[in-house]
């Protein structure tokens, strides 16, 4: 594993230029050997470029992990009068911002890679589908495209090779489902962003029914480095099935929030404790959600797992686009599952029943459980509904929507059981199941809590232990936060 070739945990390939060059200066990009990969690719045949990308082992960074070279090969083999190459810059996962960072920090690497991809598959038009909420990324990308045109690096007869290629931008309104490639293509055609069944895959019949390759921003950002440094160099980093690096956006209960780029095969422990600095305030690490709302939670038991596409899937999660949300002992896994489901429920396009209605029903069951009204039978229903939706939804959104539930039920089954059997939330998050009491041994009778209680259910005389009337308490926690003597017990 290449991770051992360096004592530094991170290797920056896709983000190699972010923070080091002025993203608005084409000269800055040329200074770091920008557009040399394009020049080199144009001296090869398209099939040779495809073979090189195949040999590198690069897989799609947008979620699915499909081998990029193989995908390009399919489009190359499909003859057509027009083909398209599309950059997926929709980035809808909550907590993910790596594509934005690449576009804002190094837009030319994406422009250059799209031209290389266009040449490899025989496309003369490239489109960046980018969400309108990314104004700075859009601004820098537009400038990059204009400057590249002015230097003749886009347009007609690039590097005198006879290859013509240009890039246009299309703006998305920021719906999560529009990141799914068939929905994205529909949206580009001016229709509702609803997925359609595959096959045919876009590489066979995509934008205006022409062969279309959709690739993620980070996938593209790797391409120039692969062309310049060679397939062998890239394939030398990572694991047997997953080559190169992955950019993750570390978020949640982690000391060092931010972007990291690590070699595939690094362990979660290294990422969370050595790079991320662990959970803040000395709290214990509990779980990490990878793969965004479509992924699953990995627990402390998985800390020594080497991260790659297969190992994450084996643990009911996935690589996804790289959001990593860390949770500590104060997080309730049922509430976390409910949080992600709330997101997918809002974002379902509504085309198919299991996803549209199933998400609502899943949410209702989770809501019932977090309110202390769940029963063991609900857990059985929850699980079977999850499995049904997975099997019957049309697109990836519906098919993966149950993942956070299934993975948390799997690893934190005891927490679900505590909610439905003991009516307790072990992490003390689900308000309905909490009780607040006062420890008479610790209470000094300072009366502070009585002043903050909004329903005046705390009584007692000065300098004497106080008591809470549980029948009136609305569990707001104000007293708990206020007491200086730790005498209020939250259970």
């Amino acid at each position, binding site marked *: 594993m290449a991770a051992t070739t360096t004592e530094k945990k*991170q*290797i920056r390939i896709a983000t190699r230029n972010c923070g080091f060059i*002025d993203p608005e200066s084409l000269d800055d990009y*040329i200074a770091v050997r920008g557009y040399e990969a394009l020049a080199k690719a144009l001296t090869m045949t398209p099939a040779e470029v495809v073979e090189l990308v195949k040999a590198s082992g690069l897989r799609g960074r947008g979620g699915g992990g499909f081998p990029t070279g193989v995908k390009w090969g399919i489009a190359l083999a499909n003859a057509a009068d027009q083909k398209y190459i599309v950059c997926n810059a929709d980035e809808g996962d909550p907590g993910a911002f790596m594509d934005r*960072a690449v576009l804002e920090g190094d837009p030319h690497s994406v422009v250059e890679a799209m031209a290389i991809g266009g040449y490899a598959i025989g496309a003369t038009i490239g489109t960046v589908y980018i969400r309108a909420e990314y104004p700075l990324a859009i601004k820098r990308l537009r400038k990059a495209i204009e400057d590249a045109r002015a230097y003749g690096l886009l347009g007609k007869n690039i*590097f005198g090779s006879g290859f013509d290629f240009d890039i246009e931008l299309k703006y998305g309104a920021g719906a999560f489902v529009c990141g799914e490639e068939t929905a994205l293509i529909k949206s580009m055609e001016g229709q509702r962003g609803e997925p359609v069944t595959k096959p045919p895959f876009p590489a066979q019949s995509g934008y205006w029914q022409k062969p279309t390759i959709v690739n993620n921003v980070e996938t593209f950002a790797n391409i120039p480095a692969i062309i310049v440094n060679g397939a062998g160099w890239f394939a030398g980093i990572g694991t047997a099935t997953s080559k190169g690096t992955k950019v993750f956006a570390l978020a949640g209960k982690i*000391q060092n929030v931010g*972007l*990291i780029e690590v070699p595939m095969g690094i362990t979660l422990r290294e990422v969370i404790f050595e790079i991320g600095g662990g959970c803040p305030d000395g709290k214990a690490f509990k779980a990490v959600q990878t793969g965004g709302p479509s992924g699953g939670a990995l627990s402390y038991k998985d800390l020594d797992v080497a991260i790659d596409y297969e190992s994450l899937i084996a643990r009911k999660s996935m690589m996804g686009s790289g959001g990593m949300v860390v949770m500590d002992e104060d997080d309730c896994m049922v509430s976390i599952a409910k949080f992600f489901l709330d997101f997918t429920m809002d974002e379902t396009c509504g085309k198919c029943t299991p996803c549209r209605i199933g998400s609502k029903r899943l949410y209702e069951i989770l809501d019932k459980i977090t309110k202390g009204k769940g029963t063991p039978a609900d857990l059985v229903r929850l699980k079977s509904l999850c499995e049904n939706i997975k099997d019957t939804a049309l697109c990836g959104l519906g098919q993966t929507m149950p993942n956070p539930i299934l993975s948390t039920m799997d690893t934190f089954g005891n927490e679900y059981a505590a909610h439905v059997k003991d009516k307790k939330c072990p992490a003390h998050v689900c308000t309905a199941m909490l009780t607040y009491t006062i420890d008479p041994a610790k209470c000094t009778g300072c009366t502070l809590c009585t002043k903050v209680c909004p329903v005046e259910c705390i009584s007692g005389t000065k300098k004497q232990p106080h008591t809470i009337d549980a029948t009136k308490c609305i569990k707001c926690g104000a007293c708990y936060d206020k007491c200086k003597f730790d005498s209020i017990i939250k259970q």
Partner: protein
Amino acid sequence: MSTIKTLDELKAKRQEILARKAAGNGKTVINVSLATCSIAAGGKAALEAMQDEVAKNGLSGVEFMQSGCMTYCYAEPTVEITLPGKAPVVFGGVDETRARELVTEYVMKGEPVEGIIPVNYERVVL
């Protein structure tokens, strides 16, 4: 702007750009991260404070640069300073006070200033 038609022309252009940059050696380069999150955290204010401090002290030989994400969300705003002949150093949490201090202490006297973020990655340079 003249167009670039061959790999050799691209390489010549690169040499020309590198030579131009090398001629600027001996200058201090102050690189401010201005990605969306850094701007939101006050990156522009840090830049302006440093520009003002440089002007106030009549410093020549200081060049400002704006780049994208330096990947340290938790320490935004971040600023990288390269003193002539020295390795670049990234400072985090650069509020206006620290921004001015960076100019008067680190740039002018080479004195250490708090908030240095150690390099924790290896970067692929093509």
